[in-house]
């Protein structure tokens, strides 16, 4: 019999810190496995994207003055991808509340793995499933009249992944603070919808007031939208490196907060 407690250090060291690969891998696998088995979630996500794209496209295409040579559907399409990202990212992170309610979280919290590894694994798992959702939406490009080259697809995937990671991290922070389902519905109203509407996903910022633009600039999703949009259509608000910097910064900050919140959880 191995002496219990003797084998704690597995994984690798990164910058002097112990990174536990088993913990990361377990949380990632579980998320991906559950995603694959939830067909309704995948289908409903795709249907939501189609409905928004088609209805908004049909409704607004004639009132929309082309910008940068783009029709409304072409302009909107990257925004629909961003919508898939934010809905799916928050939804996947929020599953932590279910884990807490149904007990599984406790099994994880009492295990001898650093909680940071669980949080990182969960974030990577959520970002993986969210990106998969968004890639399904990417297949709708022909409907929106957006033609995609191979290079664009290769470029947009990591951008989608990074945006997903940022918003899964946000979701994990929310889930860490939410200990029951009372506030569950308000996430939709007070987190997802404002972040989405203010991201510039649905309207060109160049034609809005400077006050509104100021608000949009505080919405991290607007940088994800901008990064995805400039890769797919060439129309941009910020330089790509600026978008990347903001998304990375937001992810790092939120992940740090999430880890410290879970470290305090008993």
């Amino acid at each position: 019999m191995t002496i219990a407690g003797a084998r704690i250090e597995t994984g690798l060291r990164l910058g002097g810190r112990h990174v536990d690969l088993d913990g990361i891998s377990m949380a990632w696998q579980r998320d991906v496995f559950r995603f694959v088995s939830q067909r309704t979630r995948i289908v409903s996500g795709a249907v939501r994207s189609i409905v928004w794209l088609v209805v908004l496209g049909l409704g607004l295409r004639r009132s929309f003055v082309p910008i940068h040579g783009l029709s409304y559907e072409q302009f909107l399409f990257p925004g629909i991808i961003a919508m898939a990202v934010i809905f799916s990212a928050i939804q996947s992170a929020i599953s932590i509340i279910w884990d807490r309610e149904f007990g599984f979280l406790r099994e994880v919290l009492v295990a001898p793995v650093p909680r940071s590894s669980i949080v990182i694994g969960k974030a990577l798992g959520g970002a993986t499933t969210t990106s998969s959702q968004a890639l399904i939406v990417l297949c709708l490009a022909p409907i929106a009249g957006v033609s995609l080259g191979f290079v664009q697809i290769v470029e947009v995937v990591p951008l989608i992944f990074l945006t997903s990671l940022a918003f899964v991290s946000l979701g994990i922070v929310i889930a860490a603070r939410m200990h029951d389902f009372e506030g569950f519905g308000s996430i939709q109203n007070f987190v997802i919808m404002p972040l989405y509407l203010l991201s510039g996903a649905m309207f060109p910022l160049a034609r809005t007031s400077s006050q509104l633009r100021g608000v949009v600039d505080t919405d991290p999703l607007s940088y994800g939208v901008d990064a995805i949009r400039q890769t797919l259509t060439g129309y941009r608000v910020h330089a790509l490196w600026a978008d990347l910097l903001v998304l990375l910064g937001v992810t790092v900050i939120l992940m740090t907060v999430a880890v410290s919140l879970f470290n305090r959880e008993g």
Partner: protein
Amino acid sequence: MFAFLGPNGAGKTTTIKMLCTLLRPDRGTAQVNGFDVAAQPAEVRASIGIVFQEYTLDDYLTAERNLAYHCMIYHVPRRERRGRVQEALELVGLADRRNDVVRSFSGGMKRRLEVARALLHRPRVLFLDEPTVGLDPQTRRYLWEHLHGLRQHTGVTLFLTTHYIAEAEGADRVAVIDHGRIVAEDTPAGLIGRTGAESLEDAFVELTGGELRPEEASSRERLAGARRGRSRL
């Protein structure tokens, strides 16, 4: 086997939480398997197994996958994982249900699976916090046969809290806790003898008084109570 008895709200679960490093003691120290719960939480965690009062399985995963994930977060060597999962499932008589999702299991089966899971990393102490609550007498008896078998088989120490006094009669030592303090600790026979009672149950009532206790508080309330320092050990 060590049994921990106490009326509702006496501090049994709070104590277990502190011993499992889920809750930091406000003061005092405790050692589990020679490791300090405050200073060496990772070592303590790796050396114990826990079956909580509430179920903590992932309902949407198969029995096997629940166990496989446990092996990962308890750092069971990769090559041994498959064998240990198999062995654990056989030990609790669930080998033929390995590919079924836990959702389809009865309460007793879930409990057995949790016991199997808690033993995967070969802990030296297995904490069982009211493991038979809500189970019918048949299932309870069956679970206990398994637990006693395990004890002989693996030599693991059982640390049990329970309301069913009969379950504590097979223990080597029994501690009675009330209002966050241990009021007596002895062998079952010693406790009976000391109080002049006729059974362990009579001895328990003798030690903790006859008045009724408030219903079990929610785990959150208990946690809050512990933070205020109401329960100490």
